[in-house]
């Protein structure tokens, strides 16, 4: 199972709150992946960040960061943004700042060791 670092989870939640698109959030996740990330890692990481317990992140299986997947960025953003918003009550309460924007601007996602 994935175990993302807390600051990574917090940062991604805050960025989601500030309107960063799911595909962009995924690219940020990929940039900190310990090794070449596979779809499973992305699906599980996204589920962890947004507290998905019903497999809501499965559309990621159809997406690739280079745009060659069956779902394009715009498709994925449309599908996941709704799910993230629908599940907001479960992840947003853990966000450390009320507004989030200041923190989002400052945090640089660390490389995992």
């Amino acid at each position, binding site marked *: *199972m994935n175990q993302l670092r807390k600051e990574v989870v917090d940062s991604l939640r805050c960025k989601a709150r500030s309107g960063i698109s799911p595909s962009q959030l995924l690219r940020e996740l990929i940039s900190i992946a310990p090794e070449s990330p596979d779809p*499973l890692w992305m*699906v599980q990481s996204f589920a962890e960040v947004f507290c998905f*317990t*019903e*497999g*809501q992140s*499965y*559309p990621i*299986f*159809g997406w690739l960061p280079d745009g060659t997947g*069956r*779902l394009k960025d715009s*498709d994925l953003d*449309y*599908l996941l943004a*709704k799910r993230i918003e629908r599940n907001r009550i479960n992840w947003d309460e853990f966000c450390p700042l009320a507004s989030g924007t200041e923190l989002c601007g400052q945090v640089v996602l660390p490389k995992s060791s």
Partner: protein
Amino acid sequence: MQVPRPPTRTVDCEPEAVFASTHLFHVRNKKKPGNFIHAEITSHGFFKYHVENMPKGKRGCPGKWLFEIAWDHFQQCGAIVTGIRGDWTFGDNLDVINRLTVSKKMAVEVACRHTWAYDRARSKGFTSVMVIDVDGNPGNYNAVDVLFLP
């Protein structure tokens, strides 16, 4: 976890278990990157899965077999499955739904019964169809969320 032996006459099917817990199961084919099953028992007790064998062809572990080993795994773990969830946002099941519902020639509930996923669910005794949610219009759905019940 020891993955069951693939059916005879399969080509390039070398499955390995990545996860095999009481609520999560992931088996991939070491010989074909686009060939895997990811399955889980959700918080509502639904069996939910995503299976792929891409690119399509005769190579790889058959999707039906992957479904069976995932199902058997959870049964052996003692899972009580209350429904089989299909949450389709791309792929063959959604393609079938869109093909059959174009021009409203078939209701989405009926079209669900023509999918590969329905055949799998029916094989386990889940023959009722409950459409939880759809996104889009007949023939052009972006997402179909369905639950197969006993």
